């Protein structure tokens, strides 16, 4: 009896080991590419089949900053992402409110329509956007690129926000007005705190989408509106991968920082757009 119990116990322990091995392999798969980039970015003379670069240098970072003009490009990316978040949120709030709180005939159909851009490969409408923007002189303006991003961001914002507004409990609002709060007070002190997390996660989501958006940017960027993903693409096709790596590390750090900072405030799952009912 005790033997069996010991055996089971060992199995239990073994199972845990197995699980941790699995998790470790998974984590390695995700993080090793970044480690390789980091090593490449500080190595010099790394030829043949060596595990580690023989010589370390920070030259490639100097290059990345001076030659590839990272500060300027970061500025572009942030301006574009900021504009896209602003526009998407301003579109998302009223539309999301209407979807979430009003009875609209044919709501499902309308919603499906709004979400249609998610069903179509982005390159299909990116071609159209590029042609229109060429004609309207919107190519190579921050506003133009941001506007193109809104095409992808707005449906998500509407979706997240309508879910948030739908979840707003009517009784809470009534209770507030029964207690004598003016509509403005109700709004500021009751509604805003309730919907703020939803708005925040919609904003973070649109921000990451815009920050990483490549297809639409490639079709609408110009020399003054090169964003980080486009610059990475250009750098992978020319020059040295050492410098590209250094650039990538500089670009990845903010993304990771954001992820680790916001994970306590907002359910990070929202970043994937994989919320329930979707």
């Amino acid at each position, binding site marked *: 009896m005790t033997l069996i119990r010991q055996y089971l116990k060992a199995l239990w322990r073994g199972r845990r080991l197995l699980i941790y091995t699995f998790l470790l392999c998974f984590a390695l798969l995700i993080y090793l590419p970044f480690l390789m980039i980091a090593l490449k970015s500080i190595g010099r003379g790394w030829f043949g089949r060596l595990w580690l670069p023989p010589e370390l240098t920070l030259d490639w970072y100097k290059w990345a900053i*001076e030659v590839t003009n990272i500060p300027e490009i970061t500025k572009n990316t942030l301006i574009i992402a900021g504009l896209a978040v602003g526009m998407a949120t301003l579109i998302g709030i009223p539309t999301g409110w209407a979807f979430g709180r009003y009875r609209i005939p044919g709501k499902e159909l309308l919603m499906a329509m709004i979400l249609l851009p998610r069903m179509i490969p982005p390159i299909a409408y990116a071609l159209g956007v590029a042609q229109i923007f060429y*004609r309207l002189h919107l190519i190579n303006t921050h506003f133009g690129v941001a506007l193109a991003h809104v095409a992808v961001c707005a449906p998500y914002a509407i979706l997240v926000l309508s879910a948030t507004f739908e979840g707003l409990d009517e009784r809470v609002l009534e209770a507030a007005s029964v207690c004598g709060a003016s509509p403005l007070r109700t709004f500021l002190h009751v509604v805003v705190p309730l919907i703020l997390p939803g708005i925040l996660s919609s904003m973070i989501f649109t921000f990451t989408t815009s920050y990483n958006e490549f297809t639409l940017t490639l079709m609408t960027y110009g020399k003054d509106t090169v964003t980080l993903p486009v610059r990475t693409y250009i750098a992978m096709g020319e020059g040295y991968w050492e410098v590209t790596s250094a650039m990538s590390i500089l670009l990845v750090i903010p993304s990771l920082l954001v992820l680790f900072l916001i994970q306590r405030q907002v359910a990070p799952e929202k970043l994937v757009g994989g919320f329930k009912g979707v």
Partner: protein
Amino acid sequence: MKRWMPVVAVLAVSALILTACPAVTPQVIEVPKEVVVEKKVIETVEVVKEVPIEKIVKETVEVPVEKVVVATPVPLPTEITLVDTNSGANFQWYWQNQVVPAIQEQLGVKVNYVVSKEAELLERMKAWQPGQGDAHLLFTKPETIPNALAAGLELETLYPDKADVIPNIEKCPKSYLESVLGVPIGGKGALYWRSQYALIYNSEYIKDPPTSWKEFYERREEWKGHIGLVRPDAKSGASYRIPYSFLNAFVKMTDEEGKAIPLAELQATPEWQDAWAKLVDFYSYAKLPIPAEPPNMFEDFNAGDTWISFYALDYSLWSRHQGTMPPIIKSSFLEEGMAAGSDGYLVVPAGIPEEYKPVVYKVINFLLSDDQQIRLITTMWQYTGTDIWDKIPGVVWDTIPPWEKMEPARLVIANKEVADYIKEVGPEALVPK
């Protein structure tokens, strides 16, 4: 069906609202120019009639801007914008760290150095107000000059018209100022450098490199799977320069006068068919999969998978110097001819403000000065644009072949049709499955 009526109404009304109030978001209001734009979107929705892009560009250009050209005596500008559509990573570094500070120091002119692409640059220049252009000096690939002229963009004639303000331009070889790639340019660019492709090989694996294309082709079995080629649809010029040089060794693609033989005519000849078949065969000996762009090929080279390849001489040598390519890399030539790289031309658009032009000419003259040109060849291993070979320190020729030896092997891509054909059908016809 009745249930959908409200939806239809919603759509119709919202389309109306959309047409009527373009200012959907405050951002739009902030940027008045875009308001017009937004409206236009809608107008065109209804018409769905497409107007040629160029036409619209021009029409939009002619819209008067508030800026009024005031005829006040303007002091010479001390800041110019240099747009570079030619330099690779090595020269982007050189411009920014060496040339721009030198111009600032010697001439007191601040240069905003901007990297761009030809298509982008031309598109932008088309939208300029006359005399208001903001890219004062261009550094371009040779083909950009005929491309710009063909697009109706005016460029300043630098030689001989401006030889008095750019005395150093006299040192540039005249043939390079008269035409590029067989197309006359009438002195609309100043030659800053001459770039050359070379055979590069890993001296650890290859002790006696081939000296001619024919020899290379015959000995291909020795290096099977280790020959570095780039995909014919790569953005890099290596995409067509290498196969073009190969074809050139087996079939003549220009007539006696150096004019291109039309592709259709060429394709009918047995020589071409034989050369093309050899080229297809040659690709099957390449390191597979064929790298998409040169950096991927360098990765293979650095890993020791690729032993022998072709690339711009200056770039390869400079990379070796920087430690991004192994020290065992060596270079040589193939006697039937190696493609010229992207020669660098300095170009002045006619559409920039007049007061900038004297400053730009001064900068060009400085860039063509012996001191600057010698720096170019001694630090970057790039052949100078001016013929000043006797002034160049002799040690340079220990690293790169002297110009007089190299020039006969220099192959200018004179048959553009063939180059385009390689890029077009190459991905299917040349790249092994």
